[in-house]
C-alpha cells in the first residue's frame, strides 16, 4: 500500500461501517446508520463523521487513498422488498413458465401451512414471452430462431414500459447463437433497456437455474447502475485516483461497470468478506482451516475456509430465488442478540427466529420491548455489563430483563430465572451449532479440525460456549471483530469467475485436450480483463474448479484444483481428487464407476496490496487491566460465581487471562468460560485456547508472576 489511506465502506441492514486504514498500520472503525432509501447518504454521513471525529476531510481521504471499496446492499434490498426494475423475459416457447413452476416444489417447513405464500414473481407471466426456437441436448438446432417472435416480444415490452430484459433459452449453453441473435434484435429495437443474456452471465447446464439467475440479474441491473453512477461520480468529485471497487458475493472486488452488468454478484456480498478476514487474522499462526461466525442483532452468518479456501456455493435458493453463480457460502440463521425466547405450541422452549430487532429491542433496552431475548439472557447471566453496551452509551435494565424471562419462560416451565436464562443461552447456541453443521459436516468437514473466528458485536459472549459445543479448541477474536466484514473487504483482491459447460466423460486424449483448451480460453479472457484493469502478470492468480459426478448421478460435487496442463495422464489426478471428495462428503466412493465432468470454472484474481497489520504494544501482565468482578453464571442450574472483568483497552500484547473471565472491549464483550485461556497477540487478536493448553497457560502465568 503506497498511499496514505485505504477506505472501506460496508453497508449493513442497520449500520454502515467505515474502515480507515493508514500506511502505518493504524486501523479505525466508524459506524453510521444505514439509509436504505438513499444509500449514498450514509456514505456522505460517514465521511462527515470521520471529519468530525478524526479531523480528516473526505477530500483528504479519498484523494490520498490507493483504493476506496464499497460493499453495498442496494441489490439485496431491492430483492427483499421486490423493488427491482420492470423486467421482461424472452424464453424458448413452451418454457416461459419454468420460473413460476419452480421445479414444482414448496419449501420444507411449510408443508401443511395454509398461509405460506408462493414466491413473488420478479417477472409476471404477462411479461414472459416465448419465441419459437429450440436447441437439443446434443447442441443441434431442432427449431431455428424465429426473429419475428423476438420482435413481437420487444414491441410488447415497449408498450408495457419494460426497463430491463433477460433472454434465456433451453440448451443455450451448448449453442449460444440464438440468444446472441435475439440480443442483437433487442438492442436494435430497445436501445435503452439493460440486457442480460443467460448463456453469457451463467454459462452452465440447468435451464431453471440459468433463467432464474438471468432474471434476478436483469431485475437488479438498473438499480445497481443508478447506484454505481452516483457513487462513482461522488468519489470522482472528491479526487479519487482509482475508480471505486465494489465488493461481490464471490469474495472479490470488481469495477462498477462489472457489478452493473453482473448485478447478481452484488447481492449477498456483506458477509462474503469474512473468510478473507479470517485468513488474514490466522496468518501469523499458519491457520487455514477457520469457521467464522458473525452474530448481529437479528441474524447469525457462518462462513468457512478449508486449507485457505472459502466454501463456495452454486445453484442455491437465495431469498427464494434460485441463483447459480458461485458465491461464498454464507449460512444465515435467524439468531441474534434480539432473538426472542418463547414456548411453542408443543410446550418446548425455542429461541428465534423472531427478533425484537432494534425497535423495540430486547426488554433490557427499556424501549417497550416485553419479550425476553438473547441479550436479556446474557445480562442475567452476568456476561454483559449492566452499565451498558457500546462503552455505556446504551444502558441495560436488569429488572426488565428478569421480568420478561420470568413471565414468558421461567414461570411457565417452572424453573428459576437464572436457569431459564442459561437455557436460552444454551438453546440459541445449539441452534447456531446445528447451522454450523451446514458449512462443515454437510460439506464433509469435521468442525473439530477448525479454528473458530469471531465476527460481529454480539458473538464474543457466545464464542467459547459455541467452540465447546463443537469440540473446537482454539478461537480467534480480533479487536476489530465488530467491523470484521468491512475490514475483510479492504484486504480483498479483485476477482472474476469464468465458466463453461463441458458434459464429457473423464477419459481419453480428446477430453483432456478439450478441457485444456477450455480452461486456456477462459483464463485468457480473465487475464485480458485484469490487465485492462492495470494488473501486472505477476499479480494474477488462477484457481480452477470442475463440477464432476459419477455417470448417472445428477448432482455434481465441485473439486478444486490448481492449474496444470491437462493431459490424458493428468485426468487420473482429477479423477482421484473427485473420488476423495465424494468419500469425504458421503462416506463412500465408487472407484470403478465412470466419472463425468459437467461444468468448469476458473476464478481469476488480481492481487491488491494489503495494508500493514495492526500493532499492539507489549503489555505488563493482565492484572493491570482488571476492573473488578461480577457474579456470572456458567452452570446449567443457574448458580453464579464471582468472575473477573478486564478492560480490553488496557491489555497489551502477550497478556494472558484465565477463564472464567470477561474482557470488555468498546464494541464487544468477550466471555471466557472456565477451562479456557486468552492471550492478546501483537496483531490485535485474542487467541483463546481450551483445556490442557489452558493449564499450561496458568503455569506460564504463575512463572511470569513469580
Amino acid at each position, binding site marked *: 500500500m503506497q498511499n496514505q489511506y485505504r477506505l472501506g465502506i460496508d453497508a449493513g441492514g442497520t449500520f454502515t461501517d467505515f474502515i480507515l486504514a493508514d500506511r502505518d498500520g493504524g486501523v479505525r472503525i466508524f459506524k453510521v446508520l444505514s439509509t436504505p432509501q438513499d444509500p449514498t447518504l450514509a456514505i456522505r454521513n460517514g465521511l462527515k463523521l470521520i471529519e468530525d471525529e478524526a479531523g480528516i476531510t473526505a477530500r483528504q481521504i479519498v484523494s490520498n487513498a490507493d483504493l476506496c471499496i464499497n460493499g453495498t446492499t442496494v441489490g439485496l434490498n431491492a430483492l427483499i422488498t421486490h423493488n427491482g426494475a420492470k423486467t421482461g423475459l424472452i424464453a424458448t416457447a*413452451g418454457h416461459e413458465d419454468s420460473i413460476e413452476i419452480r421445479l*414444482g416444489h414448496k419449501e420444507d417447513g411449510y408443508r*401443511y401451512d395454509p398461509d405460506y405464500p408462493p414466491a413473488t414473481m420478479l417477472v409476471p407471466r404477462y411479461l414472459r414471452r416465448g419465441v419459437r426456437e429450440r436447441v*437439443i441436448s446434443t447442441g443441434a438446432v431442432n427449431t431455428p430462431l424465429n426473429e419475428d417472435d423476438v420482435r413481437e416480444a420487444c414491441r410488447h415490452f415497449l408498450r408495457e414500459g419494460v426497463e430491463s430484459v433477460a433472454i434465456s433459452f433451453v440448451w443455450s449453453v451448448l449453442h449460444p447463437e440464438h440468444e446472441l441473435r435475439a440480443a442483437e434484435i433487442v438492442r436494435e429495437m430497445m436501445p435503452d433497456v439493460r440486457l442480460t443474456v443467460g448463456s453469457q452471465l451463467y454459462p452452465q447446464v440447468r435451464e431453471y437455474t440459468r433463467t432464474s439467475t438471468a432474471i434476478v440479474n436483469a431485475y437488479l441491473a438498473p438499480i445497481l447502475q443508478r447506484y454505481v453512477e452516483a457513487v462513482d461520480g461522488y468519489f470522482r468529485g472528491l479526487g479519487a485516483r482509482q475508480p471505486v471497487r465494489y465488493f461481490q458475493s464471490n469474495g472479490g472486488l470488481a469495477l462498477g461497470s462489472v457489478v452493473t452488468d453482473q448485478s447478481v454478484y452484488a447481492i449477498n456480498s456483506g458477509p462474503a468478506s469474512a473468510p478473507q478476514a479470517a485468513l488474514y487474522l490466522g496468518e501469523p499462526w499458519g491457520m487455514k482451516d477457520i469457521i467464522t461466525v458473525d452474530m448481529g442483532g437479528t441474524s447469525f452468518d457462518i462462513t468457512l475456509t478449508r486449507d485457505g479456501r472459502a466454501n463456495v456455493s452454486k445453484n442455491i435458493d437465495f431469498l427464494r430465488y434460485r441463483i447459480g453463480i458461485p458465491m461464498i457460502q454464507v449460512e444465515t440463521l435467524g439468531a441474534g442478540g434480539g432473538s426472542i425466547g418463547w414456548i411453542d405450541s*408443543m410446550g418446548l422452549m425455542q429461541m428465534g427466529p423472531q427478533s425484537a430487532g432494534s425497535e423495540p429491542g430486547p426488554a433490557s433496552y427499556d424501549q417497550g420491548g416485553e419479550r425476553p431475548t438473547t441479550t436479556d439472557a446474557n445480562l442475567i447471566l452476568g456476561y454483559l455489563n449492566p452499565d451498558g453496551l457500546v462503552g455505556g452509551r446504551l444502558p441495560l435494565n436488569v429488572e426488565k430483563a428478569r421480568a420478561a424471562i420470568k413471565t414468558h419462560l421461567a414461570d411457565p416451565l417452572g424453573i428459576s430465572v437464572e436457569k431459564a436464562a442459561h437455557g436460552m443461552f444454551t438453546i440459541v447456541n445449539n441452534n447456531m451449532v446445528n447451522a454450523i453443521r451446514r458449512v462443515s459436516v454437510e460439506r464433509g468437514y469435521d468442525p473439530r479440525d477448525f479454528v473458530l473466528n469471531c465476527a460481529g458485536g454480539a458473538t464474543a459472549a457466545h464464542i467459547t460456549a459455541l467452540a465447546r459445543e463443537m469440540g473446537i479448541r482454539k478461537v480467534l477474536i480480533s479487536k476489530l471483530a465488530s467491523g470484521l466484514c468491512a475490514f475483510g473487504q479492504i484486504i480483498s483482491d479483485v476477482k472474476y469467475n469464468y465458466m463453461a459447460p463441458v458434459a464429457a466423460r473423464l477419459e481419453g486424449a480428446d477430453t483432456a485436450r478439450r478441457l485444456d483448451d477450455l480452461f486456456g480460453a477462459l483464463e485468457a479472457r480473465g487475464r485480458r480483463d485484469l490487465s485492462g484493469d492495470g494488473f501486472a502478470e505477476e499479480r494474477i492468480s488462477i484457481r480452477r474448479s470442475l463440477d464432476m459426478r459419477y455417470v448417472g448421478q445428477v448432482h455434481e460435487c465441485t473439486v478444486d484444483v490448481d492449474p496444470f496442463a491437462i493431459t490424458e495422464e493428468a485426468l487420473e489426478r482429477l479423477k482421484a481428487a473427485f473420488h476423495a471428495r465424494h468419500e469425504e462428503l*458421503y462416506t463412500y466412493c465408487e472407484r470403478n464407476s465412470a466419472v463425468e465432468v459437467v461444468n468448469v470454472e476458473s476464478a481469476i484474481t488480481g492481487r491488491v496490496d494489503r495494508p500493514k497489520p495492526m500493532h499492539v504494544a507489549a503489555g505488563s501482565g493482565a492484572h493491570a487491566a482488571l476492573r473488578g468482578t461480577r457474579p456470572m453464571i456458567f452452570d446449567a442450574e443457574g448458580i453464579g460465581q464471582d468472575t473477573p472483568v478486564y478492560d480490553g483497552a488496557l491489555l497489551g500484547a502477550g497478556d494472558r487471562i484465565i477463564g472464567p473471565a470477561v474482557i470488555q472491549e468498546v464494541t464487544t464483550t468477550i466471555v471466557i468460560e472456565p477451562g479456557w485461556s486468552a492471550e492478546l497477540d501483537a496483531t490485535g487478536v485474542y487467541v483463546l485456547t481450551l483445556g490442557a493448553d489452558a493449564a499450561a497457560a496458568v503455569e506460564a502465568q504463575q512463572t511470569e508472576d513469580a
Partner: protein
Amino acid sequence: MTRRKVDPITLSVVRGVLETTQREMTLTLEQTARSSVFNLAHDYSTALFNHTPEMILQGQDIPIHLGSLIPAMKSVARFFDGDIHEGDLILHNDPAYGGSHIIDTCMYYPVFYQGELVFWTVCKGHLTDIGGPVPAGYNPNATEIYAEGLRIPPVKLWDKGKPRHDVMNLLLTNMRARRDQEGDFNALIGACQVGARNLRNLMDKYGKDVVQDCIAELLDMAEAHMRSLIARVPDGTYSGTAILEDAGHGFGDFEISATVTIQGDGCHIEITSPPQVPYFINSYEGNSYSGVYLGLMMFAQLPPPYNEGLYRCVSVDMGAKGTLCNAKSPAPHMNCTTTPMETLTDAVRLAFEQAAPDKVSASWGHANGCNIAGWDKRHDEEYVTMVLASIISGAGATASQDGWHACGPECCFGALTSGDIEMLEHSYPIIIHKYGLMEDSGGAGKFRGGSGTVWEVEPLDTPMTLVTFGEGRRIPAMGAAGAKSTLIDRKVGRLEVTRGGETQIITDNVIETIQPGERAANKNPGGGGYGNPYERDVLKVVEDVRNGLVSIEGARLDYGVVISDPDALTVDHDATRALRAA
C-alpha cells in the same frame, strides 16, 4: 401437561439434533442417488424410530411415504423379532408387511449402543424399476400383484455387518437399469449410516437414558398437542364421500367414504370402500394409513417436527379386508400411492370440513402421470423412469390465499421436485417441448386453485414406451367452502398424443408407443378453489386474465366477470354485476 421428567433445555437441544439428523439423511439421499426419481424428484423419505419402534421423527418429505412407514417398521421388527443384531441392515417393499407399493423400497438400519438396540434409521425411496413385465412397474393390465414386479418381504442385506452380495445380486438381476438401482441402494444405505452416526454422537454426549427420556417426552408432547386440536372440535360424527373415477378398468366410478367421530380429545376414523378390483388401484392397509394421515394433517396444519405421538389419539378402521382401501393379497396395487389414495385423503378432508369448517382448504389436483422407457442410443443402454414433471398439478386454495401453481399432486403436497428440463434431457433421450401452466386449470373460487401443468415430450431418436397412471381426468379437484367451477374440462388432466397432425385424447391408463416425430402431452389438473367465485375480487380476475391463467371466457363463466375489451381488459361492470347477481 406439566409432568416433566426431563430438563426442558436438554429437551429442546435433543429435538434440534433429531431434526438435523433427519436433514442430513435426506441430503445424503439427494446428493448421491443415481436415478432421476430420487435425485431430481426427491421421491424419497427418511424417518427415525426408537426401539419400540415408534416413529420419533418424520421428515418433511413425501406425505404418502411416511404414514405407511409406521406400520411397516412395526411389521419388519416383528418379522425379525429376537433376530436383530448390530450390523444388520434390512430391506423390504412388500405391502403385506406394511409397504406402500412395491416400487417404494425401504431400508431399515438398527442402531445399537453399548450392545443394545436403541434406534432405527429408516429411508424409503421410489426406484425406477422393480422388475415385472412393464418397465417402471405401473402395469395397467395386471390383475394380480405378481404381474407388477418383485415382492420383497423383510430380508437382511447385511447380516451382522456382513453384506449379503448373493441377496443383492438376486434383486438387481431382476430389475431393469441395474446401474441406477445399485446406485440408489447405495444412497439409501449411506443415508441410514449418516443418521446412525449422529444418533450415536447424541448418546455419547447426553447418555442413552437422558436421550430416551427426552424422546418419550417429545412423543407425549406431540400427543397432547393433537389432542388439544381435536378437543376444540365439537363432539359428533362427521362424514365425507369422494368419488374415484373409472380410469379405464370398466367397473364404473367408486365411492370412498370416511366417517370421523370426535369424542373429547380423541378421534376415530372409519373408512368404507368397495370390494377390491383386479386393477392396479387397490391399496393395502399400510399405504391407506398415509392417505388418512394426510387428510388429518390438512386439518391439523401443524408445523414440523412430526412424530408418531400425533396419531396416538387417532384410531383408524380401514374397513373390511378385501376392500379397495384395505386390500388383501394378491390384489394388484401399483397405482395405490396416488389412486385411490388421493380420493381417500379427500374423503377424510371432507369429513373434517364438516367438523371444523374454519380450518378447511381445498383439495389439490390428483396425480395423472406417465412413466417412460426405451433404448438410449447415446450410451447403448436401456432407460426407464417415472416422470415426476408429468404429475405436477395445482395446489388447493386455502381460506387465506390462492392455491400454489404447479405444486401437487395431493399425495406429495409440494415435497416433490420435478427436475430441471435440461437435466432430464441429459439423462434420457427425449425432447421436452413444453412444460408450462395451463389456462383456466385452477379451480374457480373466491380464492382460485393453483394451475396445473402440461408436459409435452417427443422421443429423440428411438421409439418410447409411455405408460400412464392415475386419474383426475374427468372429475376436477374438489373445492371448499362453496367453490364451484363451470369450465370443467379445462381443469382436469388427460393425455394427448399427436401423430401425423392428428391429436388423440386419452383419459384411460394405457401403454402407448411414441415414435420420434410424434408427441405426447400429459396434462395435469389444477387445484380446487375456495369460496364462492362470484365473490372473487374483479381486479384479481382481470390480473389472472392478463397473466393468461384465466381466459376471457373463463372470467365470464367461472367468475361472472365480463371483459368488454380483450386488449385493454376493460371490465363491463354493469354486466358483471348483473351476471353475479343472477
